[in-house]
């Protein structure tokens, strides 16, 4: 397993843990206060440590960089269409009305969830691209 795959699995594990804590706290603290659990997702900030290379070791080559870039492009595309186009253009006007005001907390939640979504899409895209080229023959 290369650094990119470890990075993707690490992100998915953090996201899964964050969501399980969040949904576990919702019945106890309520929907809004349970969102404090989303802060656990900040652990993804340690993800780049997987690319720490030892002397003489290649942590990321040109193919890994391409896969990483394509994955981010996919994540950005999903974020753009789902979050900004669907939520901002269709969902928010439907819920709050054309002349309504969007609460600040909704904006914050949108940012948190879209960030989680983008990282999930990116991580899955990384794993799928490696899985496609894994005929492991020596």
């Amino acid at each position, binding site marked *: 397993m*290369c650094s990119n795959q470890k990075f993707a699995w690490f992100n998915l594990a953090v996201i899964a843990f964050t969501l399980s804590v969040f949904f576990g706290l919702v019945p106890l603290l309520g929907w809004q206060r349970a969102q404090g659990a989303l802060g656990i997702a900040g652990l993804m900030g340690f993800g780049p440590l997987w690319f720490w290379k030892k002397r*003489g070791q*290649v942590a*990321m*080559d*040109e*193919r*890994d960089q391409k896969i990483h870039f394509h994955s981010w492009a996919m994540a950005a595309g999903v974020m753009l269409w789902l979050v900004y186009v669907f939520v901002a253009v269709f969902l928010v006007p439907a819920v709050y009305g054309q002349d309504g005001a969007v609460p600040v907390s909704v904006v914050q939640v949108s940012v948190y969830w879209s960030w989680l979504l983008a990282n999930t899409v990116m991580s899955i895209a990384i794993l799928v691209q*490696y899985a*496609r*080229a*894994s*005929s*492991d*023959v*020596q």
Partner: protein
Amino acid sequence: MSNENAETLTNRIRALRFANGEMTQQALAEKVSVTRQTIIALESGKYVPSLLLAFRLATAFGVKVEDVFQYHSGTPRGRSPT
């Protein structure tokens, strides 16, 4: 619909590896500064390398780039092969 006109790039990396003292994928990967997975992807034709990596591979085997990689051009639409 078949893709008969597609351009392809084949390579002889696997053959050259064995011709060079049965070099392992890991040894070649270290020589050209890539991961072993990239060598696997190259050998199976699932990855087209950059020009720089192509030259590094050729240098590692001590041959010319065209001895490692073979370009097969597709026939452009509306033209017959000459």
